[in-house]
């Protein structure tokens, strides 16, 4: 193309050097003109006819150079057909956010006859949100508007079509060079006819991308790309068609079974447009480089802080003393007791030190190492803090434990892994997907140790570690790392057991019950915090792991190896709210039982084993209560519904049985055991035992139940009915039918 000769040289230069950036939203794909849906989706509540999300990244200039600011334009276009009243109500009103001075929203409806009715956007009202004052300047400077609009004249059969446009200027100096990574499935809550995601990027940018489970690849679009001598805009996109909606399936990790993508846009912080480093925008399809992973994570168990030094000094002193006394004989003993002693020091610092939010953050590692690892992201739902739960920071723990064990000549490694729910190592592309545990090998076995909270016991198994793939990083020499997978737990590692002793009142309408519940492994995770709500364990911890202050007690030591705590009441913990905590615990367990059975009276809760010590620490408690509605009458006979005490079997619905399309991802292998001992009132006999004897066994699991009456001579003054039921889930994964 020739330019008229009278155009100035400067302008000509500018035009030739910097290509005109493409416009967003100018190309409306034919797919967005569709008004009918396939017959197979006629009975769906709504169908997404099309959805497109598009980004354009340009760089602002400062003289001949680029400034540090990247301008990002966002364009969202969505078209949804409403097919029933549920959808009509759901799409009656929209809340939306736009950014930038030219941010805008347009909504219209398309009637079944094709008539289009634009929604008057002047009827939108501000949707005031709670905005943190520290972010208010950002909202103001970015012109972020949060609004809502009610859609007029909307009826079943209509199509809603809307676009949202936003612009923000992203300053790399302030915000960094990488956007947050996205990981999502391509299934939506409604079936989708067409969806597209597009990035058009100026020189010096790249998008990391990975598609898996059948999701489409990212493709280059030469037609939509614009080339210039010094600056080009390359367009990449993926599109997906005819996608069924998300189905809510039991025992499923969606990211392991549904078509999914991962991406992240990265900017190069170079301001010189002529720099070779700023080549045309590219796609980075590489997986994780083990070398990079090593460099990124090796420091996570080598970050020595005053807190770490304090933890290590105290623990080393304790372990040395116990070794001298001869109570620690094996390396398993040393590893376990180092872990528990570290836990004690940490808890003592928390519960006895001044509880202050900054200290708390410091102790839990949130301030530490934050530039390297985003600690908060690591704390997924499985690690969510409960009311009485505090957790040591991952880096503090890893460094302290490794140093403690190192002083005992026990090497520890760092196991970096992809959590089970996210997927395989092969499909991991972001460091953000990774997490780590400390891996310690004794002569007997490997231990995978997480940063503990109050209630974690040594070697506690976690669902997200089951078969998780990754790399082990060693510290005995530089650059030592190797591929390693964390083994899955077995059916013996995760136990849920309930032992009932049952008798009846004289009226034969109330069941008197004493129940001992025992939990092991991951089965105790959701219960142990509440069971230990009385905080008695702190007294045990403080006393057991107490180290006499050294002879220079009272002298203020200089340096980092000063013991943390050495006060006269160091072996005790006085909980000012002890009674309240005990009552709260009882209330929690009473409420939980009432959700399970028809409780007449809840009489007592007693913690027998707190589940916090030993190698395989059993959580065990005893409850006393009376139940109603378990006995019914039939003439002169009584029917005792013992099945309700054995627990509900998981009953798969017809649709689950018939139509399962994905593998079964069970949290872990486990054993569920129920034993019921019933004191048979004098003058009564037991019938119907034949139904209770069962033995089903296959490669996935087994169900064994038995029942017998033990005569009074051997068990006291009454006959006893003994019922035993055991359910075993042998594996944590099953292939789908037909595979």
């Amino acid at each position, binding site marked *: 193309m020739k330019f008229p000769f009278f155009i100035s040289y400067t302008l000509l230069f500018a035009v030739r050097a910097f290509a005109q950036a493409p416009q967003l939203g100018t190309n409306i794909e034919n797919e967005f003109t569709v008004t009918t849906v396939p017959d197979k989706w006629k009975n769906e509540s709504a169908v997404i006819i099309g959805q497109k*999300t598009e980004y354009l990244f340009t760089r602002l200039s400062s003289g001949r150079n680029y400034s540090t600011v990247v301008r990002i334009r966002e364009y969202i276009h969505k078209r949804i057909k409403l097919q029933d009243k549920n959808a009509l109500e759901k799409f009656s009103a929209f809340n939306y956010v736009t950014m930038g001075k030219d941010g805008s929203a347009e909504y219209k409806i398309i009637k079944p006859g094709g008539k289009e009715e634009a929604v008057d956007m002047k009827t939108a009202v501000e949707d*005031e949100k*709670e905005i943190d004052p520290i*972010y208010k300047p950002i909202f103001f400077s970015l012109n972020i508007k949060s609004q809502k609009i*009610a859609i*007029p*004249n909307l009826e079943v059969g209509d199509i809603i079509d809307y676009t949202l446009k936003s612009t923000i200027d*992203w300053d790399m100096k302030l915000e960094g060079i990488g956007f947050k990574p996205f990981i999502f499935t391509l299934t939506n809550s409604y079936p989708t006819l067409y969806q597209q995601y597009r990035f058009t990027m100026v020189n010096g940018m790249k998008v990391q991308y990975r598609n898996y489970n059948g999701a489409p690849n990212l493709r280059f679009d030469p037609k939509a790309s614009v080339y210039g001598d010094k600056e080009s805009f390359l367009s990449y996109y993926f599109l997906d068609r005819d996608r069924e909606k998300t189905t809510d399936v039991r025992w499923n990790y969606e990211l392991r079974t549904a078509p999914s993508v991962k991406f992240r846009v990265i900017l190069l912080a170079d301001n010189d447009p002529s720099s070779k480093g700023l080549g045309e925008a590219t796609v980075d399809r590489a997986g994780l480089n083990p070398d990079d992973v090593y460099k990124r994570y090796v420091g996570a168990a080598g970050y020595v802080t005053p807190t770490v030094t304090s933890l290590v000094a105290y623990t080393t002193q304790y372990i040395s003393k116990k070794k001298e006394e001869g109570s620690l004989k094996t390396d398993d003993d040393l590893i376990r007791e180092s872990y528990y002693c570290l836990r004690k020091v940490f808890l003592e610092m928390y519960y006895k030190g001044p509880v202050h939010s900054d200290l708390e953050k410091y102790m839990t590692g949130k301030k530490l190492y934050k530039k390297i690892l985003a600690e908060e992201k690591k704390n997924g739902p499985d690690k969510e803090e409960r009311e009485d739960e505090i957790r040591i920071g991952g880096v503090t723990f890893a460094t302290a434990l490794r140093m403690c064990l190192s002083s005992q000549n026990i090497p520890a490694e760092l196991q970096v892994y992809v959590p089970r729910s996210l997927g395989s190592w092969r499909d991991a592309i972001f460091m953000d997907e990774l997490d780590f545990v400390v891996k310690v090998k004794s002569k007997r076995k490997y231990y995978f140790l997480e940063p503990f909270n109050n209630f974690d016991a040594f070697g506690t198994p976690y669902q997200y570690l089951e078969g998780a793939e990754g790399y082990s990083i060693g510290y005995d020499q530089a650059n030592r790392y190797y591929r390693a997978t964390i083994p899955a737990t077995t059916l013996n590692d995760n136990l849920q057991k309930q032992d009932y002793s049952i008798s009846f009142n004289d009226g034969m*309408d109330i069941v008197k019950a004493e129940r001992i519940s025992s939990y092991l492994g991951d089965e105790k995770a959701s219960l142990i915090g509440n069971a230990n709500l009385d905080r008695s364990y702190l007294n045990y911890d403080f006393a057991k792991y107490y180290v006499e202050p050294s002879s220079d007690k009272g002298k203020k030591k200089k340096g980092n190896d000063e013991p943390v705590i050495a006060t006269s009441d160091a072996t005790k913990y006085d909980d000012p709210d002890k009674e309240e905590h005990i009552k709260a615990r009882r209330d929690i367990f009473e409420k939980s039982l009432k959700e399970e059975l028809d409780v007449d009276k809840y009489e007592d809760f007693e913690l027998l084993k707190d589940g916090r010590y030993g190698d395989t620490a059993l959580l065990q408690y005893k409850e006393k209560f009376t139940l109603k509605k378990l006995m019914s009458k039939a003439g002169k006979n009584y029917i005792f519904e013992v099945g309700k005490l054995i627990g509900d079997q998981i009953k798969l619905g017809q649709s689950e049985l018939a139509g399962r399309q994905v593998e079964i991802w069970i949290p872990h292998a486990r054993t569920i055991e129920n034993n019921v001992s019933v004191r048979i009132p004098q003058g009564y006999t037991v019938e*119907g035992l034949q139904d209770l004897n069962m033995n089903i066994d296959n490669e996935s699991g087994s169900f064994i139940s038995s029942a017998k009456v033990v005569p009074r001579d051997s068990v006291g003054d009454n006959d006893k009915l003994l019922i035993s039921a055991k359910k075993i889930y042998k594996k944590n994964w099953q292939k789908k039918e037909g595979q």
Partner: protein
Amino acid sequence: MDHRLILPCIFSCMSSFSFVSSNAQADYADKVTSLKNQFPKEEVVAYEHKEIVNFSLNQKPAPGEGKVKATVTTQITLVPIKDYIKYEDGLFYNQQISIDNIRATNSKGKEVLIQKQCTSYSQEDIFQDDTKLCVVKFPLEEKGKSCTYTYQEIYKDIKYLTSFYFNKSIPVVDETVEFDIPSWMEFDLREFNFQGAGIEKTTTKENDLTKVSFHLKNAPAYEEEEHSPNHALSYPHIICVNKAYTENGQRKVLFESVKDLYGWYRTVCDSIGNEPSELKEKVVSLTGAKKTDLEKIEAIFYWVQDNIRYIAFENGIMGFRPDAAQNVFKKKYGDCKGKANLLKEMLKLAGYDARLTWIGTSDLPYDYSLPSLSVDNHMICTVILNGKKYFLDGTEEYIALNDYAQRLQGKQVLIEDGKNYILDRIPVFPSERNKTKQVTKMRVDGDAIKGNSNVEYNGEGKIFTQMAYASTRTENKTDALSSFLRGDNGNIELSDLKTPDFSDRQKPLQINYDFKANNQVTKAGNEMYVVMDWNKEFSSLEFDNKRKNDYEFNHKYFITTQTELTVPEGYKVEYVPSSFKKVSNDYSFEASYLSKGKTIVYSKTIVINKPIIRKTEFGDWNNFIKDINKFYNDQVVLTK
């Protein structure tokens, strides 16, 4: 695929304010133990809570302001019974009420830094209104160290000063509500739910002021529980009646009687700006083919129910003034007022005498002898045809003409009548209106029971089922209906579900299905025990002493069941449970088993006439349920 790259995730937190204070506070450390015993669940108690109401004349009221203003000054002495907690309070305001002078001082009289975050408050079912919420937070000292917390609410127009409740979000040891009424103000206070509440009222005269004080000791905190009636029905409160004021010797009436209240409503509604011509075509299309008056009224009423979505804009005066009929018609959405007004205009076009009608639903214990904006909360349309009034509630779904929702039954209505008004009442229906009738035939098949059931729903049960079915996603309707019919009982499997026309308003809703019931038959030797009723309605509804509130049923109930069991070949009937009957005015249960040789017929009728069970009646109710459960827990015995 809503994954927006550039959307910041930063929506939360608060702004801060500070005030200067110098009040010295007392130490309540010696009272902590007794307060803890008295209010074991609480972290903080209001040792004193005082609200003082003052009145003033506004010489030059600005638009939106009234001639009389009121200021409510609240002073609370907070006593923490736990160390170092953060106190949080929510203060509501809107265009008519502002909040001012929020401050807190600690036990040393030192000002406490207050965090205040004010934002729009989204009320359920309201798309937009002017309600704002200020969340106020500040730290308290160790237990026993008091903090004085004060603020003022300024009512720019006294008509919006309506009610005072005694139960707050925290317990109050010593509570006072004081009205300092000047002689130029005629002001009435109506007491509700005072009986047994222990509230003392005193009246004193100080110069020009009449001071009316209400005192209450040890008021527990208001607690939300499932099935709690609206707090106006149970909790003690005062409704203000702002009758008149005198200025320069001239007496000016405010809300002295319902006539004045109606007068104001009328003024507000005079400026709706209806353009009925825009509705004409639709009215003609709806009524053209209809022959009778009732058919024409029905056509319009049902069209509004089916086609106008409920979306409420209640900003400022729009909380009282309906949106114009043509706007609601075009937008196809509106609130109760908008729907009532649209109905009125459409019916008028069709030639009927239709009128706007104000009503307080069953959530409110008032009638129009109370001239206050608190008296009503809803608007409907009344059609007068041949001297009979038909009350049309456009916000209902699937309700037939001449049928009335439980929430409206028995409630007084204020019907517009030009300069005058008409007072009337919505008819009350007996519990039979909500009759649910289930007829079942079944047989023993192996270890299970198989059979066929026909369930007929009427009244509230029918409307609920229709609404739930309509609002369920199409692809989930069958599963949802099946789950509803099974009562989520895992022992029951349904098949051959025959669904009726769910949009029919006139006929009972009948659903027929086959079923298989597991775990209802027990075999022991020659005997077989059979459960013939696994629904066992209300069997779990016992109240423990932890419940704080009365219990409100969804509606009145009338449940009948008739089940016929075919005795299996080779068996005979050995035993059937005795008949059982327990009847009171408020609720009754009657059931029997009748052995007919080859069959056993089980009949049951449950009636709940009273929608609310008061706490004082919980004991009787629990005994009622215990007796029912004894009956439910008895089974039929068959022998070979």
